[in-house]
Structures are given as C-alpha cells and as structure tokens.
C-alpha cells in the first residue's frame, strides 16, 4: 500500500450554542495511524469529520489524501462524498431502518456485485447470525458493528468515526475497541476518531488532537497531551482510573481500573496526594521505581 497521509487545512464558520466561531484547523494524519479527536462539545469535531468526508463545503481550505486532491478552494476543486469514498460511522449509526443487516452492509455495492466481501465483514464483526434482522431488532452494540461493517465494504483507506462507542456500556466498548484494532491492522486504515473517553484514547490512539473553539489546542501522543509533567517517555505507560483508596500509615492502597480490570497499587503517600477516586493517571515503570502521573 502506498503511503497516503491525509493533509488538511480548513477554515469554516460554525454556529455553536455559544455563538459564532471560526474553525481554523491544519493537520496531517499519517498513513495507517489512529488519531483521536477530543475536546468539549460544540467545538466543531463533528463538523471537521463532515468537512473531511465532503458532506460540508468549507469557506476555504485544502484537503489532500496522498496524491489525490479532494478539496482546493483556490482552484475550485471539490470532490463529492461519493467521489471521496471515506468510511464514516455516525454517532447515531444512521442504519437504514427499512433494510436488513445484510442489506445495510451490502448497500454500497452495485446490483449483482460480488457479495463475498459482505459475508466476510459480517463474520468479522460476528453478525452472520443476525444478518436477516432489521436494525431496530438489534442492541446498541450490534447496531454499531453493522455501521462499522457497512462503512468498510467499499474498502476505504480512511475511516472517520464520530463518538462511535459513547452510547455503549464498558464491556461492549472494550469488545468494539478490539474489533476496531483488528480491523485497523487487517485493512491498513488511517483512522480519525472523535471521543471523550480517556481510556479509549490511550487504548486506541497513536496521537491525540484536542480542539477548543474551532482551533487545535494541543496535539501529540496521548501521554504527552494528558500528563501534567512532560517526563520523557521512558518505558511503557499504563492508563488507569482510580476507583477507591485507603490510607494506612504512610502507604496508600489505590484500587484502579486498568484495561477493564481492577488492580491494586501500593504507593507512598507522597506520590498519591492527588489520586482521588474518579481521577485518571498514567503509571510508568522507570528503571528503579514506578512513577504515577495524575492526568487532568
């Protein structure tokens, strides 16, 4: 597969609940990377996805994918969503209510086109058994998998996901994250994913971009963006969320959720002052000792 980074530079006026905001974003997504897009509601994350997919025309800008020019407002180039063939998974899934699961997934194929890819995708997301059901007969997680499979039928090289897992419970979320990672590996996709979930960011994303008021506030690797101190990345960092803590003498016992499992850590009180229930942290194993960084 050729190296095809997505480059864009977009300017677009937004009407948000807090008044008009001009979005001005320049960004590159490396080929095959997973980028998480985060930030408070109403800063234009969804609009950014729609701009990249071609569903909205920006006031000005340029979007290129590898050699292809998707948008160039100066040269008056604008490729329609149909021409861009981006995989887009909507927040509300946008499944077609009148079609079965199989028909939804096969929707983008032309009449008489080979269906074997559809079968394969249904198998990948474990929906073969439910292929004849209608969307309204499925659970949220199942619907999400249909939407994912449907977005992949045309073998897009770029997959955009708008808070795909926000409506799902924890266990389902993790399973879908696994699907996503599998699919990413298998199909060599470049992924841009809107999410608010720190766990999801650390689990999936190579890079994270934080937006505020239509602008990029910060970007980098997740631990760079979210850790309070910028310690050099020596050794792997583990993301966790504090559930409870118990102080005995000078030792704090913290129960935390790491990778969907509960772990216990014992830390000197000096390191654990900010580790209150609900906070997120990064645990690093340095050469001599473990270091805990509390995230904002």
């Amino acid at each position: 597969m050729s190296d095809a980074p997505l480059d864009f530079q977009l300017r677009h006026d937004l009407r948000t609940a807090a008044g008009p905001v001009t979005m001005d974003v320049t960004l590159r997504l490396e080929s095959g990377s997973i980028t998480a897009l985060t930030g408070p509601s109403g800063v234009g994350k969804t609009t950014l996805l729609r701009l990249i997919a071609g569903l909205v025309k920006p006031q000005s800008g340029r979007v290129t994918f590898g050699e292809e020019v998707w948008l160039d407002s100066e040269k008056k180039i604008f490729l329609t969503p149909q021409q861009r063939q981006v995989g887009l998974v909507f927040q509300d899934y946008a499944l077609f209510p009148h079609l079965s699961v199989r028909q939804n997934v096969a929707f983008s194929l032309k009449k008489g086109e080979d269906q074997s890819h559809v079968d394969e995708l249904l198998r990948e997301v474990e929906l073969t058994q439910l292929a004849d059901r209608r969307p309204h007969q499925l659970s949220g997680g199942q619907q999400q998998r249909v939407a994912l499979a449907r977005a992949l039928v045309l073998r897009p090289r770029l997959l955009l996901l708008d808070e795909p897992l926000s409506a799902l419970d924890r266990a389902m979320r993790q399973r879908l994250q696994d699907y996503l990672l599998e699919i990413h590996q298998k199909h060599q996709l470049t992924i841009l994913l809107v999410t608010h979930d720190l766990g999801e960011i650390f689990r999936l994303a190579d890079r994270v971009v934080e937006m505020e008021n239509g602008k990029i506030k910060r970007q980098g690797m997740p631990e760079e963006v979210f850790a309070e101190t910028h310690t050099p990345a020596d050794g792997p960092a583990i993301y966790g969320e504090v559930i409870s803590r118990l102080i005995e003498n000078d030792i704090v016992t913290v129960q935390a959720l790491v990778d969907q499992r509960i772990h216990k850590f014992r830390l000197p009180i000096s390191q654990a002052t900010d580790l209150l229930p609900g906070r997120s942290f990064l645990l690093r194993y340095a050469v001599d000792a473990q270091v805990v960084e509390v995230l904002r």
Partner: protein
Amino acid sequence: MNPEPLFLTFKLASLTTLLLFGFALPLAYWLAYSRFRGKVLVEAVIGMPLVLPPSVLGFYLLLAFSPNHFFGDWIEEIFGLRLVFSFPGLVVASVIYSLPFMVYPLQAGLQALPVSLREASYTLGKSVWVTFLSVLLPNAKSAILTAIVLTFAHTVGEFGVVLMIGGNIPGVTRVASVAIYNEVEALNYAAANQYALVLFVVTFAILLLVYSVNNHLFRVRRPA
C-alpha cells in the same frame, strides 16, 4: 341515479393525485432540504389554497383560464386546450387546489428523517437520486400514504372551484359534488341523498382500507 358523476369524481381524484404526486415530490424534497432563503415565500404560496375560499380561487382560475386572458389564450394556442369548462381544466384546477395537501405531508415526512441517513448514503457512494429513491422514499412511506389519501379525499370533496370553472356539463365536468348540489337545487332531495350516500360509503371504504393496510404494514416498531 346516473352513476356518471361518481365515475367522473373518482377519475378526477385519481388523476389529480397521480399528477400531483409526481409534481409535489421534487418540490417537497426541495422545500425539505434547500437552504434557499426565498423558500418561505414558496411555502406560503403553496399554502394559499388552504386559506382562500374555494369560490374565490375558482373565480380567479376562471379569469385566468378564460381565452380572453393571456394565460388561457397561451394554453389554447400551445396545446389546443381550453381549460374552462373542460375535464383537463378541472384536473389543472384540482392540482392547484390540492397542492398543499400533497406537498406539506411529504415535506414534513422528509424533514423528519435524520440527516445522517442521507449523508450515510452519500458516503457509501450513492448519488442524490439513488439516495432519494432507495433511502428516503422507503422511510417516508407513512407520510407518502397520508399525502396521497389527503389529496384524493380533498379532491373528491372539492366543490366550489369545480362548480365555478366546470360549467356543470353532464359527463364532462358534472362531478358528484356538483350533481348533489344540482339535485338539491332541483328539489330532488332523494336523488341528492343517493349520490351523497354512495360518495360517503365509497370514500369511507377507501379510507378504511388504506388505514388498515397502513397499520398492518407499518406497525409501531419497538426496539428489541
């Protein structure tokens, strides 16, 4: 009782509904999704037949369709068709008169669909046209049915406009509603009752059929 006025009524209503459906669908689509500012103006104009008394509308259609008027003259020259006192004229008038009854439900039905359905179809490579036919229309079935039934029923019940521009010609423009009026005028109340009864029974049967089919086809969906 002469069944001709009843046939004429149902012929007029079917033809009007058919024509109007073809004409109103693109209009409703445009009204539902366009961001054009002058749209409200068009919406208001379409709604005028709801507000104007039928006799007023009928009078102005009579003026416009008259060969003395440039519109009526133009139609006569181009199509060799005189719209006053003719069945085609009744169809044209009914199309105008029943326009809001077709357009508004269709527009509302399309607007009620989530935008993401359309957008999903576009990103899956389907054109606006294919999206309209294979995504939007199937999901607006209920609205389509409502629009068709309302238009048909409204045309069956139309009186003022038809009386005004039809000229009450037996077998051509004397539809059931006019025939009933006629019989009342002629003090033949028994004949008027017969027409009215048939009209009532047939339209009630149609509505009953349509709504029971509707209930059967589109039962309220409950998520699993």
